[in-house]
């Protein structure tokens, strides 16, 4: 079929081709009703243009999709670089950026930012007892609560480990305090960890903003305040004061010194006698740790146990105390009274750590000592958390023959019926209960009733802190048979204790007075890692 070159459809084709060449793919030809060859060309042209337009549309769509994916990937990378992977909170880098922005804002006339640094008090215990997965769950839950405790404009960051920070930009003192208090309160709530319940708790340091102060300084100061809160007994808020720096430095130095104290042989044990109230004969001794610091001199446990707990050295120190006490017991073997026992206080941290029972059994075995020569003392409060690991360890220890005692009974909240369900051999009655028994008839009757209760459940009672013969006599009349305290001897060095034991062995008077040194109860025995 020949086409007429004057056919107006050809001009139409040329026009739309030009349009197409210009990049406009929407042009279409209108074939005639003739449906001849030219119409077929026009139809084909239209179909090709339509396909081309569709391909372009799909390509553009793909470009949009790919671009969106790229943006998403870039966003993910940015999050990776600026957010904590576990909790999704800001990381140290992002926190630093926001902190700089906040201090810049203050320079331009806004309120300076406040910074909160907090460290979980019980994270190590949760990790050690329930495993890293429970530890991670705890951190995620803590992050969730922190987000709920702050304002939308605040930044919550995980600085690392169990340390978190909150940036409160444009903050009044009231804002900062209110948020800190909310944080403290929310972290005191129990954390549900599957079959277990954990308590994270936190020590909180707060640094109020100050115009002209750099972000780094604010963060450092908040960190210092947090350490001060730790030193104040945890679970509290401390507001930064310049004087804190030296205290924290001192504490850090002490922690650093403590790390070398054990290998350097600077720790030593003192012993306080436990006596039979009827005969005043020594029936045992409580081992108490002392630190002979090369420059600071004798340091009492009250000054370094919390440092040991914070720095994680408490476990190593505990092993040393157990080993040293048992080793000393073996050395005393020839002068020991029959059934003499050495008492060692153990921390709840140690009890929660698996393997304490094997460690104790191994040390006793190496020194050829019967397990019932050892009494492990645990704090009443260390038992009330109802932790499975602690209870299993206690049961295993007691099954091996080691005696278990609850220390400081009478100042906590546990009832005698609760103690009855525990694997115990005895109870140490806290010194505060007997302070007035010589003069206070009601207190005397109360202490007597406590004895009756302890005795009725088949446990042995030892009274701590006996200072006078009157107290000793009263206690004896009330039924108590065992006691320790200044009256029978202060904590004393090995040589003095050895002398006491030798003297008693020779049948001399059991009445003796050790050198005046207060007996702080430390709880530091850690299980093996």
């Amino acid at each position, binding site marked *: *079929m020949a086409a007429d070159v004057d056919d107006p459809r050809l001009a139409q084709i040329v026009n739309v081709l030009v349009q197409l060449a210009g990049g406009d793919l929407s042009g279409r030809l209108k*074939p005639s009703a003739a*449906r*001849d*060859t030219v*119409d*077929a060309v026009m*139809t*084909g042209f*239209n*179909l090709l243009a*339509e*396909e081309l337009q*569709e391909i372009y549309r799909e390509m553009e769509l793909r470009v949009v999709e790919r671009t969106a994916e790229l943006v998403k990937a870039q966003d993910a990378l940015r999050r990776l670089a600026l957010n904590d992977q576990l909790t999704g909170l800001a990381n140290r880098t992002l926190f630093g950026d926001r902190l700089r922005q906040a201090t810049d804002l203050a320079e331009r006339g806004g309120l300076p930012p406040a910074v909160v640094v907090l460290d979980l008090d019980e994270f190590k215990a949760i990790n050690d007892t329930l495993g890293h997965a429970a530890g991670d769950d705890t951190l995620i839950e803590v992050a969730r609560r922190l987000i709920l405790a702050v304002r939308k404009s605040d930044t919550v960051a995980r600085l690392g480990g169990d340390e978190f920070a909150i940036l409160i930009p444009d903050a009044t003192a009231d804002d900062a305090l209110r948020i800190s208090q909310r944080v403290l309160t929310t972290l005191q709530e129990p954390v549900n960890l599957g079959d277990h319940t954990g308590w994270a708790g936190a020590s909180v340091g707060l640094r109020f903003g100050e115009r002209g102060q750099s972000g780094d300084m604010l963060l450092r100061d908040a960190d210092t305040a947090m350490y001060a809160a730790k030193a104040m007994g945890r679970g509290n808020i401390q507001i930064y004061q310049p004087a804190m720096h030296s205290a924290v430095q001192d504490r850090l130095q002490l922690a650093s010194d403590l790390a070398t104290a054990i290998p350097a042989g600077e720790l030593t044990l003192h012993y306080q006698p436990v006596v039979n109230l009827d005969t005043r004969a020594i029936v045992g001794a409580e081992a108490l740790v002392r630190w002979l610091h090369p420059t600071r001199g004798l340091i009492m446990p009250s000054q370094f146990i919390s440092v040991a707990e914070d720095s994680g050295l408490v476990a190593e120190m505990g092993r040393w105390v157990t080993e040293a006490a048992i080793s000393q017991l073996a050395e005393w073997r020839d002068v020991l009274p029959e059934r003499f026992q050495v008492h060692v206080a153990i921390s709840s941290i140690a009890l929660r750590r698996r393997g304490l029972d094997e460690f104790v059994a191994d040390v006793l075995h190496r020194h050829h000592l019967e397990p019932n020569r050892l009494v492990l003392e645990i704090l009443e409060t260390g038992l009330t958390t109802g932790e499975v690991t602690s209870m299993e360890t206690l049961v295993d220890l007691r099954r091996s023959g080691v005696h278990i005692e609850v220390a400081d009974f009478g100042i906590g909240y546990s009832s005698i019926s609760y103690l009855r369900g525990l694997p115990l051999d005895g109870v140490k009655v806290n010194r505060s209960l007997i302070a007035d028994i010589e003069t206070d008839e009601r207190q005397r009757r109360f202490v007597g009733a406590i004895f009756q209760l302890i005795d009725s459940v088949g446990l042995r009672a030892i009274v701590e802190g006996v200072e006078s013969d009157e107290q000793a006599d009263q206690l004896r009349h009330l039924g108590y048979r065992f006691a320790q305290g200044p009256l029978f001897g202060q904590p004393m060095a090995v040589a003095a204790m050895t002398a006491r034991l030798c003297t008693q062995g020779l049948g001399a008077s059991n009445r003796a007075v050790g050198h005046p040194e207060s007996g702080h109860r430390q709880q530091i025995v850690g299980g093996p890692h």
Partner: protein
Amino acid sequence: MSSADAAERLFTMTLDESGIIRLVWNRGTAIKQRDARAALNAANELCSAGPRPLLVDMATTASVDRPARAVFGEAFKPSRIAMLGNSAVDRVIVNFILGINKPIKPIRFFTDEAAALAWLKAGSDGG
């Protein structure tokens, strides 16, 4: 037999005595996707007892847009489809349908009805 509703359908469909489904598009129809799908669905219904060949009379069809052409790339029940046209325009349209959508069963363009019917029957006879 299925007959198109003029208000909705732009085609007529019949089943002839030889077992061939005949689809005739209305004159000057610009076929859209929904029309193509309605036609193919109607043909599928007539194949409920088994596949039958389909003859599509598309002479005088104005156009078949892209989504409508894509319908022929989807699954259908007729055993093979003969597209009957009478112009170079029809030939171009059909070849765009075939070339771009890669139908899963044989589709061929014819300008001669007898040849189309012979090809369809050859298919239904197992050829």
